[in-house]
């Protein structure tokens, strides 16, 4: 049985981008995304250290990590209102490339910003279902909600994102 250290190291390398992307979609900016992703892995490590070997072996890493990420974002929101995107363009560009990339980048920031403006329950459902492309069953597991609830939250979230919010937000 390999040590929890090795398991964790592989987990970080394998899931870092997805966890970061989900953090970005949930918080709406790159700075918070990195903090969320880092917190997520720190908690994951603390939890893993207390798990028996077979639980670690049978762990479905992806939904587990995303459940932690969602909780990290929820806890942060409890303390302070989530900041929306810092769109001052001064963040270091980690994907250097032609100008089309810059445009894409701005669009991504814009979309993440709009996502961050959604009420949390719609945001979480939309991000996991459509950004992370989990199945409804997986989203339900990660959010610990019934599948039906997830479906309706995703639907409502997409409506809001498309600006179809003339009917009052029931919240």
């Amino acid at each position: 049985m390999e040590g929890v250290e090795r398991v964790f190291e592989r987990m970080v390398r394998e899931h870092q981008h997805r966890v970061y992307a989900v953090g970005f979609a949930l918080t709406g900016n790159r700075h918070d995304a990195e903090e969320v992703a880092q917190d997520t892995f720190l908690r994951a490590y603390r939890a893993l250290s207390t798990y028996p070997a077979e639980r670690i072996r049978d762990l479905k890493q992806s939904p587990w990590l995303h459940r932690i990420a969602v909780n990290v974002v929820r806890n942060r929101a409890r303390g302070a209102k989530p900041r929306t995107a810092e769109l001052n363009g001064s963040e270091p560009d980690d994907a250097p490339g032609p100008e089309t990339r810059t445009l894409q980048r701005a669009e991504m920031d814009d979309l993440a910003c709009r996502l961050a403006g959604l009420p949390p329950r719609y945001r979480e459902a939309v991000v996991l279902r459509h950004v992370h492309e989990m199945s409804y069953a997986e989203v339900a597991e990660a959010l610990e909600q019934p599948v039906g609830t997830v479906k309706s939250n995703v639907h409502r979230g997409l409506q809001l994102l498309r600006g179809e919010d003339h009917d009052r937000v029931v919240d």
Partner: protein
Amino acid sequence: MTALLTDLKRLGSMKAPDGFAERVLIEVGLADSYAVFETVLGEVYVAWNRFGVSAAARCASAAEFEGMFKREVGRPLTPAPAPADLAAKIEDELSGKRRMRFDLRGLTEFEQAVLRKTYEIPRGEVRPYGWVAREIRRPAAVRAVGTALANNPIPYFIPCHRVVRTDGEIGNYGGGGPEAKKAILTMEGVRVNRLQELARGGVRYQGVKTTRIYCYPTCHAAQRALEKNVVWLHDEKSARAAGYRPCKVCRPAA
């Protein structure tokens, strides 16, 4: 409608910034950082993590140190600016003040015990391998002590050079061979040649007539004795027979 879903999907292909995984691993102590420091011993490469200093070596290049670390410790290692107080801690540690924390994870309990005991030997003094073995309550494991010290990942700071053979040979040294061991001991104020002469003559202890106490020759408590009161003793039995008792500071006998 599909445009939105495509955009959302694209959001999922975001990449974490460069070095993110390393930063996470460093944060939990599963990856180490290193830098090179100018010291009284010349350039020393030092690796550290959140638990403390994890390795040290005098290497010709960063690549050599990285290779050694990979073989002996195995965790990911990246160069980094040193924490603000590390240079001062290194200097203090090498001048005999103890401030450093060490990360000895990955070593066996026995190895850790050997290194912790060795860390107690004051600057300017030496002890035999058998002393370390006896002090950690494994009196028969003298050879194993030698092996553990040869594999000391943090030489200079955990002073394995202060553990010597009783027959006057200086003994092996992982931190640069017997010559380096001698040079470091000399720098610390040990009169190595005199010590070797005594040992070759079969002398292991220094007794003081007025106090009737015997010590290891380098024990700082023994240095205060006047020359005229000093007697040289060959072994524990004859020392006791002559009415001497072992020093409570350097503990030459159980």
